[in-house]
């Protein structure tokens, strides 16, 4: 009986302490504790994730070559687009329009990518080792060589959480490079995404590259236009539907990368 009453007392004490921590966290009173903790554990997480990535990426040389070749071909196309952008910029300058805010790329190492089966299941979020101390803000885009990876959703002092474009909760406007069809990219989970809400009158082409339309807000956070989302692998078009859709495959294998860049607006 005595043992039971001591368990009940301890249970109530720890519940009370948990609630205390909960409300202290809401009022940002835990910063003196959370920052040193993050400073201590961030290298541990980095070491664990790097060690695991090193083991699972041991035999990826041929895949890397394939990606490099494809990347080279795509870069050529992007060069053409960049030239068009430069011409556009020159015209804007001519008419003295407001230029976009300058942006810098903050390199970040992935220290966490939880999935059901590590190395096999597609992760839905990344944890990166940059946070508010590096000027990172929620809503900023995360990229890798012009490929869109995701968006920063939560920020701590040392760490940030990135919602991947393949996550079920991710959606944003995009356009196809060759046919200029406009649609919404929606993550489906499990490493998959679709380009939905495309008008039936627009043309979709298998193999076409999907780029972000751009949704940069007043604070500078958001996706810049022209970031590569992926390429169309299959199209679903029925005359009886309101819209057509296409399945998109990212050019980046999210389970194999360990460094990304945050587009930090100044």
């Amino acid at each position, binding site marked *: 009986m005595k043992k039971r009453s*001591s*368990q*009940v007392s*301890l*249970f109530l004490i*720890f*519940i009370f*302490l*948990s*609630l*205390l*921590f*909960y409300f*202290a*966290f*809401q009022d940002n009173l*835990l910063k003196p504790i*959370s920052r040193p*903790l*993050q400073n201590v*554990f961030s290298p*541990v*997480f980095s070491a*664990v*994730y790097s060690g*695991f990535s090193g083991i699972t990426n041991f035999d990826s040389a041929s895949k890397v070559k394939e990606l490099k070749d494809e990347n080279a071909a795509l870069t050529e196309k992007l060069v053409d687009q960049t030239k068009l952008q430069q011409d556009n910029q020159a015209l804007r300058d001519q008419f003295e329009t407001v230029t976009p805010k300058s942006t810098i790329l903050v390199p970040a190492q992935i*220290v*966490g*990518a*939880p*999935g*059901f*089966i*590590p190395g096999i299941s597609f992760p*839905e979020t990344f*944890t990166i080792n940059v946070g508010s101390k590096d000027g990172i803000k929620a809503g900023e885009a995360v990229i890798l060589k012009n490929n869109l990876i995701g968006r920063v*959703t*939560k920020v*701590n002092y040392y*760490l940030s*959480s990135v919602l991947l474009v393949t996550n*079920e909760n991710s959606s944003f406007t995009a356009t196809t490079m060759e046919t200029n069809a406009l649609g919404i990219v929606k993550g489906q*989970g*499990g490493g998959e995404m679709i380009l939905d809400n495309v008008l039936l009158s627009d043309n979709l082409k298998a193999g076409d590259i999907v780029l972000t339309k751009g949704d940069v807000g007043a604070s500078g956070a958001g996706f810049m236009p022209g970031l590569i989302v992926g390429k169309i692998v299959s199209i679903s078009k029925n005359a009886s539907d309101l819209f057509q859709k296409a399945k998109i495959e990212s050019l980046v294998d999210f389970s194999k990368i360990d460094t990304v860049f945050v587009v930090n607006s100044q």
Partner: protein
Amino acid sequence: MRILATVLLFLAFSLEITLTSIPLVFILLVAFVPFYRNNFMFFLAFLFGLLLDFFAFRDVGISSIFFVSFIFLMLLYQSKLEISTNYFVFIATFLGSFLYIFIFSFQGYIILEALTSAVFGILIFNIFKRIKNAPDKFHLSNS
């Protein structure tokens, strides 16, 4: 043994933050309860719940409340049910993991993850049972 339990929980915590969405910390806590039916489990549940919330970008304190409440429920039923059996550990881990994944990290594999958690729970429970009984067996064979 307490040090071993704490070290294993730290390892599970690191793996849960970096590599897997399976609730490893919760599985270990449930598997350890039959061996530590005392107040030490409350402290471990509280501490690792806080750490998990800090680094998983959740509201701090929520996981602690869940872990402490579940451990309390298990200890409450120890006089009515035999909690040191594979059946109890399997059911407790399955139900607790199902609820935990549903509340905190639902990604579409909830039944499969809960089943996997239950299997892990039994494995860890049996391994710990062997480790704990090993010195007793040695003593008996010498006497």
